[in-house]
């Protein structure tokens, strides 16, 4: 059975070459500078031009391998599978059954746009590798992408059919048929330009960029003439501290503006739509991204308010999905910025099984000191050392004590929890306030922690872990009433008991929700 085989668009070759170049750029620069700075003539032409020769041949090799990679890459449909064959020296074949595909994510970069192409990433349930998705089609036309999607929905429908035939009454079949008919997309959320502006200006991207700068400096540390800079610097100091301060401030502002622009580009036209059983998120100005998250893969929902946004009544919402890698892939920004008072209504439209109310039960006052008491363990030595070594000014470090105590108080006051039916809601604060909504069947394990001192005061902490990609997302409530913590353990235990014994789990579940 020979099926028609498809090749990627030729832009793939260019993208591959550029990607390889980007990876090779650092060694190339090193080669170039190490060689180019040598003075004098050795008389041997191939030594004089060594750097150019190396660079040139590398460029040629990269281009040729890029083109060959493109030529070798083929995909086709066979036996309800997406089959991909690729590889330069080692031929790789990868067969992905359509019914295993959880979602297709699209990215349109600047090279894709002129040709109406997309990059398609195939996400499966057990995407095992940490960095890449199961299958990646670097550049195909939009028609080809929708062709894959058609194949996928077809295969999934075929799989659903026999199950519904088995069911006792005909209702589920009917329902499914109806569902298939009204395959419609509902727009649930979009980011207005005003919100986009606020998001960009208050984003935490500053830290990311600062660390990026630090990394850059550490990478190019040898190339930057520090001595020369030091001389310049000392002459600047003669000008006065004011100018230094101004320069630093200007630098920070520059970094901040950069982060604003980057956030603006990546969150431009951010839209969330609900299509059947999938959440679809599209965003981006230069690089358009389209991510699909099947609803049933969502493991937990968190509402996060950082201290900068909280006073203005803004919050952000993220969901943790079972797919994706560590970190980025699994934690998905569902609403990057939204008015707090509208969170509940919007979320309930997407997740009807959840109850998005603020948790009600606060913590007992006797647990309050635990929020900052442990910090004295590191504070006292640090303060002691600072005071000892920098005598008069070191005493200023004492100021950290009230700050830490205030933060502890704040964390104590922010903490709350509620158990509602089969849902555990936890609100806690590190610095940002997070409200985590987890259902019982998504909590993978529950832990109660108690130190000797906690026990004396009859308080305990609860940590609930839900799956998030390859890792976990943890919700916790610290220093709550001991009896209440045990009640949560019992709550978690009871339900799973019944779950294991009941064979009609789904029916059971739906009853419970009501």
């Amino acid at each position, binding site marked *: 059975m020979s099926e028609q085989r498809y090749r990627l668009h030729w832009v793939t070759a260019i993208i591959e070459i550029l990607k390889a170049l980007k990876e090779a750029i650092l060694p190339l620069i090193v080669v170039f500078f190490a060689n180019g700075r040598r003075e004098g003539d050795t008389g041997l032409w191939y030594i004089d031009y060594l750097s150019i020769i190396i660079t040139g041949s590398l460029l040629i090799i990269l281009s040729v391998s890029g083109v060959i990679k493109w030529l070798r890459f083929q995909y086709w449909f066979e036996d309800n599978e997406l089959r991909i064959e690729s590889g330069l020296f080692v031929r790789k074949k990868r067969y992905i059954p359509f019914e295993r595909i959880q979602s297709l994510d699209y990215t349109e970069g600047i090279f894709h746009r002129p040709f109406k192409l997309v990059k398609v990433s195939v996400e499966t349930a057990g995407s095992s590798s940490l960095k890449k998705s199961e299958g990646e089609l670097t550049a195909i036309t939009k028609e080809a992408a929708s062709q894959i999607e058609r194949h996928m929905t077809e295969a999934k429908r075929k799989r659903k059919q026999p199950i519904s035939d088995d069911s006792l009454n005909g209702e589920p079949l009917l329902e499914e048929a109806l569902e298939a008919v009204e395959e419609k997309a509902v727009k649930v959320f979009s980011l207005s330009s005003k919100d986009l502006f606020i998001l960009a200006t208050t984003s935490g991207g500053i830290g990311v960029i600062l660390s990026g700068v630090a990394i850059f400096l550490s990478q190019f540390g040898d190339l930057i003439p520090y001595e020369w800079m030091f001389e310049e610097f000392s002459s600047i100091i003669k000008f006065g501290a004011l100018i230094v301060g101004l320069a630093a401030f200007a630098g920070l502002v520059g970094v901040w503006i950069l982060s604003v622009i980057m956030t603006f580009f990546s969150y431009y036209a951010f839209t969330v739509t609900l299509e059947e059983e999938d959440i679809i998120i599209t965003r981006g100005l230069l690089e358009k991204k389209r991510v699909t998250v099947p609803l049933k893969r969502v493991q937990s929902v968190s509402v996060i308010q950082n201290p900068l946004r909280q006073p203005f009544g803004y919050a952000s919402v993220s969901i943790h999905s079972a797919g994706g890698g560590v970190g980025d892939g699994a934690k998905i920004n569902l609403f990057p910025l939204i008015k707090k008072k509208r969170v509940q209504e919007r979320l309930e439209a997407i997740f009807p099984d959840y109850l998005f109310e603020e948790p009600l039960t606060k913590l007992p006052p006797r647990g309050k000191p635990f929020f900052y008491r442990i910090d004295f363990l590191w504070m006292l030595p640090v303060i002691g050392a600072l005071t000892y070594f920098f005598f008069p000014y070191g005493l200023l470090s004492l100021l950290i004590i009230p700050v830490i105590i205030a933060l502890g108080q704040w964390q104590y006051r922010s903490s709350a929890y509620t158990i509602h039916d089969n849902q555990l809601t936890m609100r806690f604060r590190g610095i940002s306030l997070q409200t985590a909504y987890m259902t019982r069947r998504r909590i993978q394990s529950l*832990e109660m922690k*108690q130190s000797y001192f906690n026990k004396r005061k009859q308080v305990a902490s609860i940590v609930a872990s839900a799956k998030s990609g390859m890792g976990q997302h943890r919700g916790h409530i610290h220093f709550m009433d001991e009896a209440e913590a045990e009640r949560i353990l019992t709550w978690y235990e009871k339900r799973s*008991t019944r779950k294991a014994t009941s064979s009609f789990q789904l029916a059971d579940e739906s009853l419970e929700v009501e």
Partner: protein
Amino acid sequence: MRPQPANQISRKGLKVWRLYGIIQTSILTLLAIGFGVLIYINDWSTWLYLAAAAVIIIDSYVSIYLIPKIRWMRWRYEVRESEIELQHGLFIVKRTLIPMVRVQHVDTSQGPILKKYGLAVITISTAATNHSIPALEMEEADELRNRISILARVAEDDV
């Protein structure tokens, strides 16, 4: 008050932990001897000999006697029909509940020292977390592993 989980880990686990403590202390002792030589060569204060000796004595008491004892006393587990409950911790007592339906797979493993004592570690993995019981008699570990895997088979894959 919730009752503690019923089972304790093997008494031999205590021995193994003591052995680990002894290994750790001997490494520390070697370091201390090296330090002693340095003191001798450089003619540093004789008090430093005492300090080094004190460190070793305290460490051997803590890591050979005290910590294994507390750890062993604290470690409890119980495998019930529908969940696994663990309790462990030195200063902070942790009690973990893992529903059977969440268990993805169970492993047993043993290093050379555990093998000599006929012990094994059993590791229970859910979709998100890993939990292990550190020292069980081998037959017990195997039996437990089989039991958990049978009980967990009821689980429906819904992640």
